[in-house]
């Protein structure tokens, strides 16, 4: 009598122009811009790409005629859009590919126009570097929010991590101790977040905003009062050593990005895998997700909802704090005021864009990192596009990504909702 599952025969037929098809249409339009407009205006010159990290004439390279390149990649973009419209399937894949082809077409146009030369390995290396804090931040967000606590304090956790890394790394005289201190710094912010959110049921977004302001104020104060007074004893942790994996780092394009970095690069890659396995394959992960979706259900089978939330918020703080060391020990060798510059919020966007999944968050972080790397590159080759606009690129990408592409993204059902028994 009762069927085992709800059948969908009552589902409304959707109109022809589904979201997927609309995206396809946009892809086709972008492709047309590339294939027609860009091809028309690009000079009939070659665009040269180097595989290595430098543009030394001896390095392996290939070049493509500007007009041919924009035409080919424009057509490829159109093809992706057409596939979306025709099949109404595989939204993520074709939108991703289509955007990538369009970006390549635009890049060829710029390079042919300026006669610049592009070292691809360097581009990917910069992408990875720019992505690093976002990866740590976004995954910290995933770990926290999967258990039902909103983490707007990523920015504060990164900043405190960066500050602790510089301060304690210098004072103790060990960079490794600095890394540990960074993680603890992030966890301290988490502790306040967890305490106020879980124990006192304060609105989690408000606490997050307040904690960011607190972190900015405190680290700024101590930077002015302590670090600047005696940089040598308090603010010179130095750069983390770069470890190169022999062989693998020689792989063209991706080798230097993945296998020639500081401990943070390897930790980030490991973190993505570890977080995914932990969330979806372990007892802790199942319970975390249950607590984030339906805490009462978890409570009634004897899971300590609040305890688990504390644990997860603390883990998130450790992760984000550790990632914060990037700012004071990887890109710079000391701490400065507001050194994170709002990247924690981009990490938050990456978490949402990545749909609260570690791999998604990682890919989103890479995407944001790439758009940031691209803007540096275009400035380097003296693109005629104004540099202010180029600097905006990652943020514009963020807005479009979060507003337009996520759409159906579904947060954990109990995200941000305090749990009260009974």
């Amino acid at each position, binding site marked *: 009598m*009762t069927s085992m599952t*709800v059948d969908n025969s009552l589902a409304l037929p959707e109109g022809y122009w589904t979201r997927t098809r609309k995206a396809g249409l946009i892809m086709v339009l972008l492709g047309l811009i590339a294939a027609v407009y860009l091809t028309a205006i690009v000079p009939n010159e070659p665009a040269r790409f180097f595989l290595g990290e430098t543009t030394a004439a001896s390095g392996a390279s290939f070049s493509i005629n500007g007009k041919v390149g924009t035409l080919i990649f424009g057509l490829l973009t159109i093809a992706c859009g057409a596939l979306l419209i025709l099949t109404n399937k595989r939204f993520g894949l074709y939108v991703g590919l289509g955007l990538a082809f369009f970006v390549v077409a635009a890049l060829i146009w710029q390079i042919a126009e300026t006669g610049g030369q592009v070292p691809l390995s360097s581009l990917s290396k910069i992408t990875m570097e720019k992505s690093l804090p976002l990866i740590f931040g976004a995954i910290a967000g995933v770990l926290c929010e999967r258990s039902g606590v909103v983490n707007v304090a990523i920015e504060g956790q990164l900043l405190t991590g960066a500050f602790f890394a510089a301060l304690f790394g210098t004072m103790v005289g060990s960079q490794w101790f600095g890394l540990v201190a960074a993680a603890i710094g992030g966890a301290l912010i988490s502790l306040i977040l967890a305490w106020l959110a879980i124990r006192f049921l304060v609105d989690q977004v408000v606490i997050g905003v307040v904690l960011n302001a607190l972190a900015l104020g405190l680290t700024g104060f101590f930077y002015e009062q302590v670090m600047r007074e005696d940089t040598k004893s308090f603010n010179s942790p130095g750069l983390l050593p770069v470890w190169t994996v022999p062989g693998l780092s020689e792989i063209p394009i991706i080798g230097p990005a993945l296998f020639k970095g500081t401990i943070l690069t390897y930790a980030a890659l490991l973190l993505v895998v570890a977080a995914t396995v932990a969330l979806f394959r*372990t*007892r802790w992960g*199942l319970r975390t997700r249950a607590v984030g979706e339906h805490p009462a*259900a978890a409570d*009634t*089978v004897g899971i300590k909802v609040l305890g688990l939330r504390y644990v997860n918020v603390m883990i998130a703080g450790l992760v984000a704090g550790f990632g914060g060391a990037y700012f004071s020990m990887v890109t710079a060798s000391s701490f400065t005021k507001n050194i994170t510059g709002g990247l924690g919020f981009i990490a938050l966007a990456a978490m949402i864009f990545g749909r609260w999944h570690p791999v998604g968050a990682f890919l989103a972080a890479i995407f944001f990192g790439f758009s940031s790397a691209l803007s540096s590159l275009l400035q380097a080759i003296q693109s005629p596009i104004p540099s202010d606009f180029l600097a905006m690129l990652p943020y514009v990408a963020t807005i479009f990504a979060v507003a337009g592409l996520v759409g159906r993204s579904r947060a954990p059902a109990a995200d941000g909702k305090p749990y009260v*028994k*009974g």
Partner: protein
Amino acid sequence: MLFQHEVHIALEATLRLELRGITKRFGDLVANDDISLTVEPGEIHALLGENGAGKSTLMNVLYGLLQPDSGEILVDGKAIKIKGPGDAIAAGIGMVHQHFMLVPVFTVAENVMLGAEPAKAGFLNHAAASDLVRTVSLKYGLPLDPDAIIEDLPIGIQQRVEIVKALTRNVDLLILDEPTAVLTPQETDELLGVMRGLRDAGKSIVFITHKLREVKAVADRITVIRRGKVVGSAEPTAPESELAELMVGRSVVLEVPKQTSEPGAAVLKVSGLVVADDRRHRAVDGVDLEVRAGEVLGIAGVQGNGQTELVEAIMGLRPSLTGSVTLSGQDITGWATRRVLRAGVGYVPEDRSVDGLVKEFSLAENLVLDLYDTEPFGNRFALNPRAINEAAQGRVEEFDIRSQSEQQPVGSLSGGNQQKVIVAREMSRPLKLFIASQPTRGVDVGSIEFIHRRIVAERDVGSAVLVVSSELDEVVALADRIAVMYRGRILAVVPPNTPRETLGLLMAGITPEADS
């Protein structure tokens, strides 16, 4: 298999539960007042009481979700402390909650194993969990697909998951909190069968309900609770009227007194209406119906068959895709809700706390939510508190709303009185049509009687009345004609003296052969 030996041969497992002097207070309210109760091994013990009598509180105490202020719990003669659900499960007590405790995005197996996951070094063993689900569901005749996602399953199957979840924890006593509230009559019969099967397998069951018919059908013993106290126990052979009297504390008229209706012209006409639900499914799939002046049309059906969406579309709360709604010949399709209300429609929404009242507002303010900007209650710029309060005093008296003052926040009233506030508000305008969705859900018997009488009175002054309820008894008691709704369609319109079995079958989507 790792887990098979852990599923005990059930007949060995028996548990005797004793509650002694359980008292639980919430502020001034004594929810449980010195309650003592014994559940013998292998019996179905019905806990009968009205909404708000304290049944659920008692069971939440037993399950460790609430801590009693005094009293003790004994299992097999030994006093135990239950500090949380974990302790309850360890003591052999399981509970199926009225609102299911299932994670909607998890699979059946994930939900069943949650909290007691088969794992090796912290890594889940999904295969073992699926096996456990299959083993237990086979053993008790409760078939389940371990890999199905909960939110795709019908309510009846979700309940089965809850029962299996409890059984995999080797509980010997199962608490079922209002388990039939969401089921069709057929599903209810099926559940009662399952309960008997579990009893025969040696499990004890505490069956919480306010439905007399079910108690009589399945219970071995009955304990009646009223206002937090045990007021007596009864044998299942006792007549319904006696049980009802015990439950309510006075004799209860189980039937709504009313004359035969003298319907006039059609007031509400719905034709070819198609409405989508939030998931973009056709919740209402081509409904035609007519409600005439001076009659009550009852819509029966299991919850979730499109009744909510139908009413919301009529009220302008939800867009209709095709079809039309007319009120006394005027096309009101797509009208804004305020316009519909002011055209002479009264509306009692199904969820009073979300859609019917502003809980933080006072009783008086809630009574003028519809007319606050109309003389004498106010104008475009300001409210007239004196007029509002005077009107409120009149309504409170007329509708027997039990409150300390009309300035009291409406959320502090009992469910029945809150519902009366809504009914009072909606009946204070001149009406052509009165729509009541689940008019007595979660309401005490006294208020039920009162609301039912007002609904019939509204009919008798010539309004058209549309009553939607998932309580078949309520529809039968009120309606002059019954429309049975199933999967977005009206399957049949039948007179109220139609046999219950026929109605039950219709609610399950089965049209009787003799229909032609």
